[in-house]
């Protein structure tokens, strides 16, 4: 009776090799399905919602530490910060007054031209919860998600400029791909010359590339790249990066341009998620496309 099954020490189930083969096959299938077919988005969202309480518990001590640290700031530093913010507010207010008149003038001109209005609609303040764990991608997770009205594709900015774009939305959080990520491209404009280009993340380090610009391009060190607003994702005129290095080599038809993003992703935690929506062009008479020629007596005849 005691010999009808081996002791538990020897019971190991299927051999590790068999398990490995099975799980490897499942993994490869999952990878293919996720990469090519995008069937797993809902599953991922469900899991992320389920993991949310765990995430709150895990980040709890850090959040508590930050709260305690914030509580124990000295009065000196508070007064200093207050003075600085007050000064900034004064300057910004002066700018804002000019901005209002310019905005009105701009709206007026656009009306005259019949151009579509591009307006920034909803903005939402989010806080970076944690940086991605993956070394290959530059992503951060923000604490606002689908429940707060965030949708994928929105632009993410901070007080200095463009941070990136929302790429995945979970119920209570969303994933922001940073401007330095290899897969993110931002349509930009050189502020000084108005020349348009597309900035790509470099994927390694805090670097943004400006590829495919000919050697003869008028660009120099210190130029600021701002969003051109052509894509309808980023509001126009936000700073993206600063040109750090321009290298013109004889052996390449393109200039090698290295830029540094201006947004202070590593220095602070609050970001702004903005949605740009083009208002429907109401005042414009869009030319109706000619009706398909049908063999009827209404067909236009040539004079």
């Amino acid at each position: 009776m005691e010999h009808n099954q081996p002791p538990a020490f020897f019971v190991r189930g299927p051999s590790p090799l068999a398990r490995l083969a099975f799980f490897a096959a499942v993994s490869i299938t999952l990878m293919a399905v996720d990469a090519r077919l995008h069937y797993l988005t809902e599953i991922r969202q469900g899991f992320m919602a389920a993991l949310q309480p765990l995430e709150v518990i895990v980040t709890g001590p850090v959040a508590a530490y930050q709260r305690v640290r914030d509580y124990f700031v000295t009065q000196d530093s508070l007064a200093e910060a207050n003075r600085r913010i007050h000064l900034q507010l004064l300057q910004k207010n002066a700018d804002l007054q000019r901005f209002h008149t310019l905005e009105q003038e701009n709206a007026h001109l656009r009306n005259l031209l019949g151009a579509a209005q591009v307006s920034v609609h909803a903005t939402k303040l989010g806080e970076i919860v944690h940086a991605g764990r993956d070394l290959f991608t530059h992503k951060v997770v923000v604490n606002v998600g689908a429940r707060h009205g965030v949708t994928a594709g929105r632009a993410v900015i901070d007080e200095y400029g463009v941070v990136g774009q929302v790429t995945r939305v979970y119920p209570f959080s969303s994933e922001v791909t940073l401007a330095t990520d290899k897969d993110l491209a931002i349509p930009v404009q050189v502020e000084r010359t108005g020349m348009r280009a597309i900035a790509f993340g470099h994927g390694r380090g805090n670097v943004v590339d400006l590829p495919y610009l000919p050697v003869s391009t008028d660009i120099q060190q210190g130029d600021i790249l701002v969003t051109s607003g052509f894509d309808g994702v980023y509001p126009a005129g936000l700073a993206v990066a600063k040109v750090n290095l321009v290298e013109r080599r004889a052996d390449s038809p393109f200039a090698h341009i290295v830029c540094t993003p201006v947004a202070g992703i590593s220095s602070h935690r609050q970001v702004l998620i903005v949605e740009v929506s083009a208002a429907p062009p109401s005042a414009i008479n869009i030319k109706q496309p000619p009706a398909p020629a049908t063999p009827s007596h209404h067909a236009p005849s040539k004079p």
Partner: protein
Amino acid sequence: MIRPDFVLVILLYWMLRNPNLCNVGTAWMMGLLVDLASGSLFGQYALTYALTGFFALHYQRRLVLFNEGQRAFYVLLLLLLAQVTLLVLKLFSGSGLPGWGYFLPSLSGVLLWQLIALLPLAGVAPDVQR
């Protein structure tokens, strides 16, 4: 980025300590959770952890005979294997090549292992039921 792979190091500890409790399947499940949490392609970390777990279990019986240094070296090899596997998978899915700093987490992982190795590992045989 020198943050060690905490999940993998802890997983290795349990696999080397008690392979009945924690086997290739456990490693795969943990990898799947990491895939979810990190937003990477489904199955990348899962495959990596399963493969690493397989090699960890393959020599698990012999590991008791090793001394501390040899065991740490073995863990280093396992962590490097995991990183190389992940690198290959990421390259297949279209990522760029990272710099040499990519392998630093393996070294910090071994340092973390030194801390964990203070916990009993050798001589702890799984309970033998008679």
